[in-house]
């Protein structure tokens, strides 16, 4: 079946620094979504990317969908303590039946003040 890999699994970031987390799929995707889960909370939708090469920004967060629609990235600039949490990508393949999304393993972000 479809596999979605996220790297790194853990990210320790100094406050103020930038970092990037990556999401890679074994199949071509119709769209990809990103979610953030704060410690003790539940995943909350951040954004959806649909078009090849698409780039979307939300304040300090930049989301990119690869040209081949097999990978995506989330880049955070000037990390703040409020960025702590686990970031998940969720991918929908063209081959996927019904409305099934496959989640990556997540990148857990810890921020050092």
């Amino acid at each position: 079946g479809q596999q979605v890999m996220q790297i790194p699994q853990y990210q320790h970031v100094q406050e103020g620094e930038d970092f990037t987390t990556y999401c890679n799929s074994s199949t071509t995707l119709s769209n990809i979504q990103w979610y953030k889960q704060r410690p003790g909370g539940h995943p909350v939708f951040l954004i959806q990317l649909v078009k090849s090469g698409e780039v979307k920004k939300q304040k300090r967060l930049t989301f990119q969908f690869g040209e081949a629609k097999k990978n995506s990235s989330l880049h955070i600039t000037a990390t703040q303590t409020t960025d702590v949490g686990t970031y998940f990508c969720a991918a929908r393949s063209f081959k996927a039946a019904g409305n099934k999304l496959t989640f990556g393993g997540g990148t857990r972000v810890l921020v050092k003040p």
Partner: protein
Amino acid sequence: DVKVTQSSRYLVKRTGEKVFLECVQDMDHENMFWYRQDPGLGLRLIYFSYDVKMKEKGDIPEGYSVSREKKERFSLILESASTNQTSMYLCASRLQGANSGNTIYFGEGSWLTVV
């Protein structure tokens, strides 16, 4: 705002017990999902339902069953709980989407410990 409510936040059950996890959403969404979340494994889909009385197996359905008698309610059932089912269970719902897909809204999660 979409509200997805899971009836129990924390449960402790004994091995072999039958366990019901209840989920209700208030936005008339057609699609509902049950995931389990384990460290390093992300969210894994157990079952989903795209309409009343409809259900489809996800990636890890073994040991689980579901019930969707009403549109707003999706129940996850562990027929005979085992210790490897200790996990955090997340219910979610989504409006029936076109090819571009729609946002999934999650409940707060239910932490189940099987002893």
